[in-house]
Each structure stands twice: as structure tokens, then as C-alpha cells.
């Protein structure tokens, strides 16, 4: 199996990937407009344009927002069907991820089911934020 396709952090996203490596899901929020949390990372608020934003640790709690189950696996993802999911974080933003510690079936994966983040180390630099059922 070829090595998994992994992100290459940029200066603007480095804090996010450093956080994952350290076991912390980091979001950003604006300190000026009350526009709330946002994702993916950028050094300004997408609501008001202010550069006065802060990085903070998210709760890691989310719900399953939508997904597909890919029946033609990408070579670096193994040979079994897997869900490509979007979760809605408790803080508001949504992100793409995979759901682990669960069968990859429509029956097991119900929209709005509660999830929590778990971290999957890939290399010394890159750890991916994945999600699992909150009761797992």
C-alpha cells in the first residue's frame, strides 16, 4: 500500500498541525467582531477581515453532519470501503475527517450521532484528527 496522502503545513496552518501532534484540536476565533470560530485556519477573520484573532483548543466534541462510503478505495486508504465524513464541531465550524472505531456502514453511521476527536499519528510531523463515536 502506498503511503497515505498527507498534508504539508504552511505558515498559516502550522499551529493546527502542531496542535494535532500534541493531542489538541486547535481552532481560531475573532477577538473583534464576535463572528465566532472558523476553519480552515487563516490569520484573519473571514467575517470581518480583522487580523486580531486567537488560537484556542476546541472541545473535540462534534456530531456527524454528512458522509459517503467510498466503495472504490484510494490505493493509499486500503482495500475496504470507508466513510469520508464531515463533522460539525461543537464550536460551529465543520471539517472533513474519517470516523474510526465504528463499522463503515449506513446502519452504524447515523447523521447527528455524537462524536469525539481522536488523534492518529502518521509521521513525526503529521498527526490526523479523526473522530469516533462519543461512547467509544
Amino acid at each position, binding site marked *: 500500500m502506498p503511503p*497515505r*496522502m*498527507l*498534508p*504539508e*503545513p*504552511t505558515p498559516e*496552518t502550522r499551529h493546527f*498541525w502542531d496542535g494535532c501532534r500534541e493531542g489538541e484540536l486547535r481552532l481560531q476565533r475573532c477577538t473583534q467582531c464576535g463572528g465566532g470560530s472558523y*476553519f*480552515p485556519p487563516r490569520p484573519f477573520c473571514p467575517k470581518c477581515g480583522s487580523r486580531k484573532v486567537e488560537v484556542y483548543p476546541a472541545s473535540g466534541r462534534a456530531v456527524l*453532519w*454528512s*458522509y*459517503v*462510503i*467510498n*466503495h*472504490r*478505495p*484510494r490505493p493509499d*486508504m486500503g482495500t475496504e*470501503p*470507508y466513510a*469520508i*465524513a*464531515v463533522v460539525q464541531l461543537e464550536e460551529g465550524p*465543520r*471539517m*472533513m*475527517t*474519517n470516523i474510526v472505531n465504528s463499522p463503515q456502514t*449506513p446502519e452504524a453511521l447515523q*447523521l447527528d450521532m455524537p462524536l469525539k476527536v481522536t488523534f492518529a499519528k502518521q509521521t513525526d510531523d503529521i498527526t*490526523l484528527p479523526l473522530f469516533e463515536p462519543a461512547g467509544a
Partner: protein
Amino acid sequence: MKQKSIAVVGAAETTRLGKIPDMSVIGLHADAALNALADAGLKPSDIDGVATAGESPTALAHYLGITPTWADGTSVGGCSFMLHVRHAAAAINEGLCTRVLITHGESGRSRVGAGRFGMAPSSLNGQFEMPYGPAGPPTMFTIPVLRYMKTYGVTEEDLANVAVIQREWAAKNPRASFRDPITVDDVLGSDMIAWPFRKLMCCLVTDGGGALILTSADRARDFPQKPVYILGTGESVETPMVSQMEDFTSSKAFRVSGKKAFEEAGISHADVDHLMIYDAFAHLPLYGLEDLGFCKPGEAKDFINERNTAIGGKLPLNTNGGGLSYMHSGMYGMYALQESVRQMRGTAPAQVEGAKISIAHGVGGMFAASGTIVFSNEAP
């Protein structure tokens, strides 16, 4: 834009559609361009404006021997050609050029002279989507749909019926890739691609191309074909990442582009005789009907199931068979435009009798971008 100030005076697809392993991407652009030039009674040196996506306008102009005073390389996915029409109309009205050639060519199936897929791992898509296993549009464009289905009680059968009705249109079109009738059971029994999407809910992958020639309406009657006038136009973009769509049950780019086009055209929905909605996958016509305002949110499934978009229905939709049955090279928007022009000329294989207004609505990327063109065949 000013209503009916611009007309389509040349329109053609590549000589062949489907499997064309003996032609490269630039060759398909040129074949479509030469066919459109012949349709308009023009030669390359008569063209002074070029627009294209997938190839650069520079490559296109040089290959065809055109020296333009205006060039547009807007490339936002399969609806780029709708945006080119809109930009060309503005450019002609501003006096930047007089006769614009817009081309598309894509070796989607044979991949002759085609670039490679892929996104840089440092891009936002590369960092925040690709690591989780998307393997092309069937696994990305489809991600919002379970949320849409849960919100509005849409079933797999509803999705399947979109493909069934479009196949009925395709049966009337000799150039359609798939013409044999299918049933909902056939669709639901076809190979699973990315649950809940089966193979027959996904578009074809073929080779082909198309081209349009636009000029000012006051010159349009000098050309051999019946002019087709641009009544209104719209465009917008939302996000390159499907996971970051504002609303998984509706496309913001569709809503903004569609509203703008209706406003420019000064028409109501009841005025529309014929509609093309870019259907890379079976959910696109559902989202399109709702986001363009033909149906209320959640009601498009019933509108389709009640056969309003089928042969004999009040709003004939995707009358060439669509990306699901006609052809889909990768950037299908050009073929939606071509079918609208044929319907307005009165030359479509499944001609809608008496049609006076046609809309071609396109999508780019995975709900990333949108363009909408309203056509009329009535002279200003």
C-alpha cells in the same frame, strides 16, 4: 448586462463524442472551434476575442492562428463557459472586441494530451480534505447529499428517478452515449460507487468538446444561423472545499448566480420554456431546481417524480440526456449551453415545440462555482 445586446451566431460540438483516442485536448478544442466557425461562416482571422478553460487562451489563440484583442482564461470548473459567455458579453459591449470564440475540449476518457489530476498537499484542499480519502468527484460532490436527504425526506429512489427520466430524453438523441431505457430498480441495482451513490447516478466519462461564437446583436442577422440572444447572465463562487459549503442542502453559488440571471433577464419562472441544469450527479437537478427558485426547498423530488421535467412536462429539463446519459467530458457546462442554443434555434433532437426562453445553469468544482445564462430566440 443589457438584455439581448449580444447574440450567439456560431455553435457546434466536436465532430464526434464519446471515445476519441486519436485526438488530444487541444485538438478537440480546435475541432469544436472549426465546426463553430463553419456554422457561423467565419474563419479564424475573423475572431478577435478568445475565452477557454482547461487550455490557456494563449495556447488556443496560437493554435488556431487568432490574434485577439481580448482573452479570458477564467477556469472555475465545468461552468467556466457560462462565465465566459457573461464576460464576453461585457467585453463586446465595452468595445474590447467584436467576435468572441469560446471553446471547450477534453479528453476525459482517453486522457490524450491531458494534464494529471491532483492537488498540492500544501493547498487547503490538500491539507484539510485529501488526507481523508476522497478519490475524485464521485466521493466529494456527493458528500452533502445525506444531509439534504435527511432534511427533506429524499430517498434513494428519488435520486434514482432523476437518472431514469433523463435516460428517457437521451433515447430521443442519436448522439447520446446511453439511450436504452432504465428503471429505478436498474439504478439501485447498479454498482455501488460511494454510498448512497450508485454508478447510474454518476455521470459518464467521455471525450469531446464544443465551441460558441458571440457578437453584438445588431450584427447578428448577417450570419447564416438563426441568432440566439443573451437575455440575462449570472455567476458566483463559494468555496473550493465541499466540506466548507455554508449549507449542505443548498448551493450559495447557485442561488446568487441564478438570482442575478433572472434579474438581468427580467423574467419570471413561468416564462422559462426549457432548462438545462449541469448534472454531474443525480442530486444536481434537485439542488438546481430549488436554488434557481423553480421549486421550494425539498420539493424538487416531487416535481421530478410528477414528471414535470420529463417529455411532455411543463419544464423540460436536460433534454439532451444530460451528463448522466448524453456525455460528460469533465467540464460539461459547454454541452448544456449547446443544447440551449439548439433548442432556441429549433434544431434539437428532442425539440421543445415553441420554446422561446431557455436557461443553461452550470456548476464548477464540487458546488464551488456557478454560472447561469438565459437565452431567447426572439429578436430585440
